[in-house]
């Protein structure tokens, strides 16, 4: 494995976008961990606000201005990092857990087990997630635990399908037959022989799940269903809209949480892309093909047909 790891890092370091994404991610994790040290103010402390503090523009004391009750926006955004990351990682942990178990079982055993599990997966896959999340949170209550559970339990479908397809190919390898011949149980084969082969793929697809979970939390909070006791980017945006930041032109209240969301999502997307490019051979073009040549080939194949169609349309 050491050599695989080493070659992974060698390929990873060549992907500048991936390295940048990782750096951005490390930065945001540091911000979350060190929030009490970095943030100039504690957003949970009550503020003796005067009329001048309400939606005050950026000033030397408050670099990103103040909100409608006089709190420091920069501190709100810094503390919001914590919720976003906690929800992101916790929800994707649930996603990995459920997705892996279902994918491994469906792929390995096949037959009616596979059919049953995949139909359930399809069922959840076709339900629009956000409206369902809204309904469940509205009924179950607006706690952070509920939010994590709802996001986790509604987003494992892609993971399950990805894992299953990989398992289908790995289980046909001869070392699985050998393990069966030795007398390894189904559980042992799945855990010791198949899972290690699927792990890189799980890692690559989990990075995207984290940013999806963070966005889902922000959406819920923005729609007023976030945890009311905690400061998150979504809830900050929600309050900014509700309390007239737009009409007062208080851009310093709206832009920072939005940018923070974009920052995190982008970092995960870049990281995930780089990792997938290394792991998924299909995204890697064949070594005999030049990327530019591929593009020009594609044009040659597809262009005339599109042109023909366009002419026929006219």
């Amino acid at each position, binding site marked *: 494995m050491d050599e*695989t790891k080493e070659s992974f890092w060698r390929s990873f370091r060549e992907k500048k976008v991936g390295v940048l994404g990782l750096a951005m991610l490390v930065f945001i994790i540091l911000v979350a961990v060190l929030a009490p040290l970095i943030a100039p103010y504690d957003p949970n402390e009550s503020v003796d606000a005067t009329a001048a503090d309400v939606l005050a523009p950026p000033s030397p004391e408050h670099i990103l201005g103040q909100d409608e009750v006089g709190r420091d926006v920069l501190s709100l955004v810094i503390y919001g990092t914590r919720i976003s990351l906690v929800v992101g990682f916790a929800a994707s942990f649930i996603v990995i857990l459920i997705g892996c178990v279902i994918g491994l079982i469906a792929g390995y055993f096949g037959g009616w087990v596979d059919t049953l599990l995949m139909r359930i997966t399809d069922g959840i896959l076709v339900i629009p997630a956000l409206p369902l999340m809204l309904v469940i949170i509205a009924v179950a209550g607006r706690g952070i635990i509920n939010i994590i559970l709802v996001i986790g339990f509604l987003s494992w479908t892609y993971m399950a399908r990805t894992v299953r397809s990989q398992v289908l190919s790995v289980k046909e390898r*001869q*070392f699985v*037959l050998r*393990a069966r*011949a030795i*007398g390894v149980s189904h559980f042992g084969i799945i855990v*010791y022989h198949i899972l*290690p082969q699927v792990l890189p793929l799980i890692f690559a697809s989990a990075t995207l799940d984290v940013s999806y979970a963070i966005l889902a939390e922000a959406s819920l909070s923005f729609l007023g269903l976030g945890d009311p006791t905690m400061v998150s980017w979504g809830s900050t945006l929600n309050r900014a809209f509700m309390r007239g930041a737009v009409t007062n032109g208080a851009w310093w209240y709206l832009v920072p949480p939005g940018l923070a969301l974009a920052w995190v999502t982008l970092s995960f997307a870049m990281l995930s892309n780089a990792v997938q490019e290394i792991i998924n051979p299909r995204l890697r073009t064949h070594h005999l093909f030049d990327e530019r040549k591929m593009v020009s080939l594609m044009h040659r194949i597809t262009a005339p047909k599109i042109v023909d169609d366009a002419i026929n349309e006219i």
Partner: protein
Amino acid sequence: MSLLSIKDLSVEYHTDAGVFRAVDQLSFSLEPGRSLGLVGESGCGKTTAMLALMRLLPDAGRIVDGEVLFDGVDLLQLSPAEMRTYRWGKISMVFQGAMNALNPVRTVGSQIGEALKLHKTVPRNEVSDEIDRLLEIVGVTAESKKQYPHQYSGGMRQRAMIAMALACRSQVIIADEPTTALDVMVQAQILDLLQQLQAELNLAVILVTHDLGVVAEVCDDVLVMYGGRMAEYADSDAVFNQPVHPYTRRLLAAFPNINDPRSELASIPGHPPPLNDLPPGCRFEPRCGVGGEKCARENPEIIEVAPGHYCRCLIARAEER
């Protein structure tokens, strides 16, 4: 009673494309300390027969008939849990192509240890020493157990597979084309190793191969398969010196003769019959060339042409008379 005796084993593959009878009424027996060579063209059912007796057929494969008696116990009647103790505990296997049969992300030592732990061959605290001992038996240094399969050479991997097959003191070892994809020098080393271990441990070995040279060198008995059926079954001497079945004769003629390097190599024209559309008579009849019209109609029975020398051929019977 023989250690292992297979009686009328028949295996079918049920697929969307139809039913393929891959093995048809195969019988043979094996004594401790002896080796049987299973010879035939690709797709004639050699590997399927071996997987069937280990009960490791893929989902589409079904054993439709027959018995696999190990020390008098019919393996086909055992529960899956009982079968698991026989697999590797009594009968183990060296797989075709060692690279694919080893898990690339785990060390070779841990994969040998897996068999030891599962079958509780040695107490848990002695597993590590036992792995060292097994690797040394097959001529791999004990330090290499911490390495991964890709760090092994082809020959070392095959040695490791043999060590794994020996791990649980099995009495029968099935070697499924153990020397394919190895160069000639390493091939000879692996065969020597197998022979030496067989003598030392009094193992019964089934060697599946399409290399007649290997069979002549290593095996006591030879079973020639054609189209899922036994064509000829006898000790090596008889098969190589007095072959009876036309298929065996032509197979031997297709083998280069080292004493007459300028003699022409004879190939056998045509292909083995499709297993879902078998000819009504003898399966080799379309390619045989010496058979009569009776061969195309009548299915030959197994006959004993000499003591211990079996053959499935109508012409052979005529010759005998």
